[in-house]
Structure formats: C-alpha cells, structure tokens
C-alpha cells in the first residue's frame, strides 16, 4: 500500500514537471507566433495561470517526503534528539490537521462549483471545479504524507 502511495506521489510530481514544460514551450511559441505572425495562442496565458496553481499541489507531498520544504531549524537543531523527535511528531500532526482542513473545505468548494456549473471569469470559460479540484486532490496526498511522516517519527521515537 505504502509503495503504491509513493508511486502516486512520484507520478503527481512528474505530472507537475510535464505541465511546467508545457507552459514553458507554449509561452515561447505564443511569443514567436505573436511577433512573427501576429497570431497569438489566446488560451495559453489562461492555461498557464491554472498550471501555476496545479504545480505546487501536485508536488507538495513528494517534496515533503524528500524533506524539501523550507524549515527554520535553528532552534530544533539545538534540542536533544528525543525532544526533537517529539516536536517532529507534533509538527507532523499539526501539518496533517492544517492540510486536512484545506482538503475538506477545498473539496466542499469544488463540489459546490461542480454542482452549480460555474465557469471561470476568463475567455475560455473553464469550469471552476476543474481549476479548484487540484486543491482537495493535492491536499489529500499532502495530508496523508504528513500523517505517514508522523507515524514514522513516532516509531523512531519509540525505538
């Protein structure tokens, strides 16, 4: 189960990579078409904006697993290993609860927009739920990773 979860995290992360390359190449093509042929890709800018929201939510859980999120460790580095371990359990739990709240309310808002069929106020009229749904989806994996991390820290503390 854990291995499948890890594979999903990697998949989501690389999906973010794919989206990033799509917006990079797409933006360049857009600039060239606009300058050379006076024919820009009208939807590129809007899609790129949505991708900017997708990337962090797709990558957050794997970055947490790789301990890549910035932490101010100046204080905790001076604590004893046991106290640091306890603090890690507490902060992982807090992180899990915070992200669970965002996931829950993110899910509610997305569901609400889906039911009402609200489009974004941009030219493509993209359904809002398609834009917002990455918050509960990415949030779910981020939450779960926090709780997995908490269990890991707790087991290390016990041993």
């Amino acid at each position, binding site marked *: 189960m854990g291995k499948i979860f890890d594979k999903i995290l990697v998949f989501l*992360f690389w999906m*973010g*990579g794919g989206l*990033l*390359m799509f*917006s*990079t*190449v797409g*933006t*360049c093509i*857009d*600039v060239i078409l606009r*300058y050379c042929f006076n024919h820009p890709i009208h939807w590129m*800018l809007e899609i*790129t*904006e*949505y991708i*900017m*929201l997708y*990337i*962090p939510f*797709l*990558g*957050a859980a794997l*970055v*947490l697993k*790789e301990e*890549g*999120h*910035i*932490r*101010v*460790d*100046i*204080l*905790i580095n001076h604590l004893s290993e046991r106290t*640091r371990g306890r*603090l*890690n359990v*507490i*902060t992982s739990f*807090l*992180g899990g609860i*915070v*992200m669970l*709240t*965002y996931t829950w*309310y*993110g899910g*509610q*808002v997305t569901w*609400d927009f889906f039911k009402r069929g609200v489009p974004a106020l941009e030219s493509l009229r993209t359904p809002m739920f398609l*834009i*917002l749904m990455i*918050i509960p989806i990415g949030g779910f994996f981020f939450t779960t990773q926090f709780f997995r991390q908490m269990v890991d820290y707790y087991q290390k503390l016990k041993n």
Partner: protein
Amino acid sequence: MGENIPMEWWMALLLLIGGTVLLMFMGLPVGVSFLFANLIGTLVFMGGLSGFKLLILNLEESLTSFGLLTVPMFILMGEVMFHSKMALRAIDALDYWIGRVPGRLGLLAVASGTIFGATSGSTIATTSMLGSLLIPEMERRGYQKTMCIGPILGSGALAMLIPPSILAVILATLVEVSVGGMLIAGILPGLLLASFYAIYILIRCWIQPEIAPPYDISPIPLIKKLKEMTIYVLPLGLIIFLVVGIIFLGMATPSEAAAMGAIGSIILSVFYGEMNWEIFRKCIFGTIKMTTFMFIIIMASMIFSQILAFSGASSGLIQAVVKLELPSLLVLISMQVTLLFLGCFMDNLSIAVIVVPIFMPVIKALGFDPLWVAAMTLINMDLGNLTPPFGLQLFVMKGIQPMTPMAVIIRSALPFVLCEVLALIAIMIFPDIALYLPSLMRKG
C-alpha cells in the same frame, strides 16, 4: 462561530505574527506555518468557519497569476546552467582575459559571479559552482583561505541582485510593484556591488600580496581568446538579452522573457553537447521541487497579508508609526536594521514573506518609492545569506569546503558583508542607483 472577535491591532499583530513565528521555530514547514496562521486568522477575523470557503478561493486567486511563471522559469535556467556545466566553459574563456593583476582569481570569481548571476537566478547554484571550480585553483596558487572563500561568497550573492533573480520576482509580487521594474532595478546595484568587491580585492591583494601571490600566465594568442569568447561567452550574452533586454525594451512580459531564457539555455546546452536525458530530468526535478515549496509559501503568505490587513493590524501599525512622528528616514533605517537582524536567524524567503506585509503598508504611507525600498531589501536579503548563524551561503560553502572551520568561512565573508552594507548605504543616499533604469523602461 460566525462573529469576528474584536481585538486591539497589536494583539492581532502578536497573534498572527507571533503564532506563525512560533510554528516556524517549532520546525513546521514555513508555508504550512502560514497556512495554519491563515486558518486561525480566518476563524478570528473573517467570520469563523464560513470564512474557510473564501480562504480556498483566495488560495486559487493568489496563484493563478501569469506573473508567477517567471519564478519556475528562472529556477529552470539556473538548474540548466548548473547541471549542464555551461558556465564552467564561460569561466575558462573569461580567465584568458584577466592579466597579471593582484588577486587575479578573486577578480575572476567576481566577473564570473556577475555573468553567471545574469544567467541564473540561484545564489546556491552560483556559490557552489564557483566554489567547487575556483577554490581548488586558488589553493594551488597559494591563496590564503579567506581570499579563496570570500570572493566566492560575495560573488554568489550577486545572483540575487542581477536579473534574473528569483527573490526579486517574489518580492515584486509581495510588494505589488512591476516584476519587470523590480528585475531591472537590480542591475545597477548589482554592478555597483561587483565593483566594490573588485576594488576591495585589488586593494587588499596589492597591500598584502602574500594572501594572493601573483603568478605568471602563459601568453594566449588573441585569436584564441576571441574564439573562446565567441563560442562560450557570447551565447550566454544572448540568453541575458533574451531575459533582461526583452523586459527592458518592453517587448514581452517578464514571464514570457523568462520562458524564452529557459528554453534558450536548454537549446544552448544541447548545442554544447552538455544536455542528455539524465541532466534534463535533474533540471526538471530541481525546478519542480523548488517551485513547489516556494509557491506554497507565496500563496499562503499573500493570504496572510490580506488577513493582516483585514484584522486591522496593518492599519494600526501604520497609525502607531505615524503617531510617533519619527523622521521617515529613521523609520526606513530601522526597518533595514530589523531585516539585517532577522537575516542572521532566518532564510530570505521566510523573512520576505513575514516582514514585507508588515513593512510595505508603512513604506507606502510614508511616501517612499516601493521599488527603491524593495531594491534595498534585496541587498539586505543578500546580506542575510552571508551572516551567521543562518547564512545560507555559509552552509553551502561549508558543504564545498567541509574541512574549513565555520569561523574561517564567516571571517572570509566579513569584508564582503561590509561591501554590501556600503552598497546599501549608497542606494539609500542615491535612490537613482536603483530607480534610474526602471524609469527608462518602455511600458510593455
């Protein structure tokens, strides 16, 4: 839970800022600490649980901005320059042009830092690349440890000032000034700082030649110098133009220029035969990793500033500062000193996101140009990278030079820290150093 809880502005400030800082120091990731504070802030000041749905919509709004594409693009450029080792060849080509001058390799570090800083938005990439390349050569030539390490640390910091600079984009987003203007505003301060470094190295090595013994250089034919320059330095110049020139001339938005620069650097690395699937994978991995944590911090801190304003903490602070009737310049200097102090304990991004929402409303109320203050803040962030105990670059250097005691690394950084303080004072006295180029920019 639908009611707001009435609170004095300073209590609101203490709750929001104090709570966030406490969570950060407990070791919760910086972005998640802000997300936590946003939940508390929403509960207390924005209508309780019903405000959470608004919070989700604010999350979406804060990141769906085309301007933010600049951040991953600059990171990608830095990753490509770093992993493909393109900059190494450019440094070799530059090396041919510096004659038998005091502190030659120190000057080479400054020149390389300026050029590499202009092609990479990453201070870490610049420091680690210059450090691993030039320090062994400096040691072989008998340079004293402080003269090996100092110039590299100083030059690494240039990447944060000279565009493309990731922090400049983030700062511009937080301060709500033009991203293009902010990037261009870093050029002259960056060049000024590079000149200060060069003058210091020249004078110090001229007075004390034993710390950087001069050595003879085998003569290199002019034709070879020109050839190497054309092959390895000029194309980097093209990348610099793609990013800086396009923004300056108003031909495209900073995000579009950054995307062109990123693709340009990938194409260039392919031409040099320095790109393969493995390197490309590393570049994308590094880019997404950094973008993820940065975007979470930016997203959460932008909402944090809104809550801070909504709670009355920002306006209360402005009124309190105005009531003190202190000279405006003194307020500005106190802010810069506070940033300098915080730089000793926290990383740049955390400082920027926690302090900017508090300082900027005051700055605007006092009538200062936000671009000018943001440029000074950038130098201050640079300083934070070089000051113990939390100077990021000091740790990067320790990673490159594990056998060198931290005390020596810190001592090496000191003269360069002083150069940065001088540059900061110069910009404070002559705001045009930062504001002249943005004033010439064509509106895109």
